[in-house]
């Protein structure tokens, strides 16, 4: 891989609540290069969104506290940068889209106005020119009748149209990195296909790097180059999609792949679930956080957090004491 554009190093974001310390992100590192797509998968409460929110400076401090880590964008640490410097990067060089565009768009302003506002916040451009650019962008993301649509309010848009409008806003300033947090989870599957198709096309045109945060292993298999699997605030596994899907070296990844019902296969007798449930981030089990649910767990797993180490090759990392045993297992993704 070439020089990474954005990299996160040993990030720890802990939330101090009345109930205890929530270790939402606990020693996470990842990086993304130009034009690349990195998938971040995990279940709710795995901390998969928090590192992206931290990049955008959207994590409120307090209750959150950055216990350690750096967020490097083109070599500059965003965590220590001053407000002015961060504002210049956020929204312009790095932008983000969210799961629910209705809550992300302001309900009392017209869609075109909101997009123009983003442009004017970063570029010296008159109101009329900015509005015209907003209309162009709406057209580019496939909204029919963009001139008229720009004058409408978010509630007049359908779910898919709103997501397109949010993508238009996020891409208004040609960012180098787009953080997409569950961009299609709220949408129907045919609309999901339209939106993913749009993102891929825009990525090809502009060379945008995309961080695709999702719980859907299918979406990542279809669209990402590499994937980061998160569990209980920590990285379980990181590698190219082929390495992770066909040669998983962490029992959580293997368990997830085994537990999925597959649309492309005749039914097997029974699904093989992962036993138990994900831990609360306030009471993460000692040692490897996955040990209470892991079929491979031994005493060392209950005592020592396994380091995230290279397996097979330098780009395939897994945090498991027993990943050698996993190498002998047939991956359910290989068909």
């Amino acid at each position, binding site marked *: 891989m070439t020089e990474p554009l954005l990299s996160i190093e040993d990030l720890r974001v802990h939330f101090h609540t009345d109930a205890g310390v929530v270790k939402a992100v606990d020693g996470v590192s990842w990086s993304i290069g130009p034009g690349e797509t990195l998938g971040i998968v995990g279940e709710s409460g795995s901390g998969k969104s928090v590192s992206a929110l931290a990049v955008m400076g959207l994590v409120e401090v307090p209750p959150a506290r950055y216990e350690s880590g750096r967020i490097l964008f083109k070599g500059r640490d965003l965590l220590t940068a001053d407000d002015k410097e961060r504002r210049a990067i956020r929204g312009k060089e790095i932008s983000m889209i969210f799961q629910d565009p209705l809550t992300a768009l302001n309900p009392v302003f017209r869609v075109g106005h909101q997009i123009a506002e983003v442009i004017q916040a970063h570029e010296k451009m008159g109101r009329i020119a900015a509005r015209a650019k907003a209309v162009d962008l709406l057209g580019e993301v496939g909204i029919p009748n963009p001139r008229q649509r720009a004058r409408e309010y978010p509630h007049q848009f359908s779910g898919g149209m709103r997501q397109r409008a949010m993508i238009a806003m996020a891409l208004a300033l040609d960012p180098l990195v787009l953080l997409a947090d569950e961009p299609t989870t709220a949408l129907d599957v045919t609309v999901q296909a339209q939106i993913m198709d749009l993102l891929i096309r825009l990525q090809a045109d502009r060379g945008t790097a995309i961080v695709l945060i999702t719980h859907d292993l*299918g979406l990542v298999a279809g669209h990402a180059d590499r994937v980061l699997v998160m569990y209980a605030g920590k990285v379980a596994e990181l590698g190219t999609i082929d390495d992770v899907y066909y040669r998983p070296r962490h029992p959580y990844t293997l368990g997830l792949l085994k537990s999925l019902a597959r649309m492309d296969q005749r039914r097997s007798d029974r699904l093989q679930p992962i036993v138990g449930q994900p831990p609360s981030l306030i009471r993460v089990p000692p040692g490897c956080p996955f040990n209470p649910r892991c079929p491979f767990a031994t005493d060392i797993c209950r005592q020592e957090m396994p380091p995230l180490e290279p397996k097979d090759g330098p780009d395939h990392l897994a945090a498991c004491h027993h990943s050698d045993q996993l190498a002998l297992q047939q991956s359910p993704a290989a*068909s």
Partner: protein
Amino acid sequence: MTALVEVENLVKHYPIRSGIVFRHDVGAVRAVDGISFDLEQGETFALVGESGCGKSTTARAVLRLIEPTSGSIRFEGEDITTAGASRLRALRREMQMIFQDPFASLNPRMTVRGILREPFTIHGLDADGKVEALLNMVGLLPEHAGRYPHEFSGGQRQRVGIARALALNPKLIVCDEPVSALDVSIRAQVINLLEDLQAQLKLTYLFIAHDLSVVRHIADRVAVMYLGTIVETAPTDDLFERPSHPYTQALISAVPVPDPNRERARRRILVSGDVPSPVNPPSGCRFRTRCPKFANELTEAQQQRCIDEPPALVDRGEGHPSACHYAEARELV
């Protein structure tokens, strides 16, 4: 096999009213527009489709939680659309529902014991010892009875919802998106539980879902709905291996599978635009406004037929019924 439920020409229109003093109907949301299907004893029949296609309305009408506008629903041969209040109450013991969001469907102020005893109280039955038996059946422990819904995880809450549905030993359970609110690693647990219970108790499931992966695993037969009508219905493997309606094809091709090589090899059939309003559905075939086949493959004369004539849901030589004039099976997964 005999049919437990027979639905015939079911229609549910919600009137749109206007005026403050003189209320009058100005139109109708045609949520369900003339659908027919049977549920065989002991099978899982899935209704799939995207939001607004009418699948949940259909399910609720089958339980008579809403009054159908027209059409008939027979349960064990008895027309329940005309059943009176007391008959309906008796029928409700036979048919139950599991909801998508177990947090919203369980009363937060009641303990699990209270929630599970309620069906017995309503029907004047003895609940002694039943709560423990039900908890055991769904894989929960006796001591869970004293807890409140918020003390459970999502998967456990759904188990409570399932136990409540099972309380009166029903024959039919309508499962409305029972696993879509659950985390990926928990889904398989609940799906397995539903399958075990079906085998053990000879249950019939009407399974409502938008997740085709789950449907392929759990269903025996599937009906695909679009804008209030069934566009294709077939035994599960048949539907996934030889989908013949363009909408079913688009739906199947849009679902990503967790296998990078397959994903690289797959061809997506994209449909354009959004679902039209059910107030004013397109003439003829309702899918024609978004249909890739209509747009790219048909001649003008053929297109005219789609505009004029609503296609009947019949087998056009593809092995199962499909509501497309130009039905043609394709392999997509």
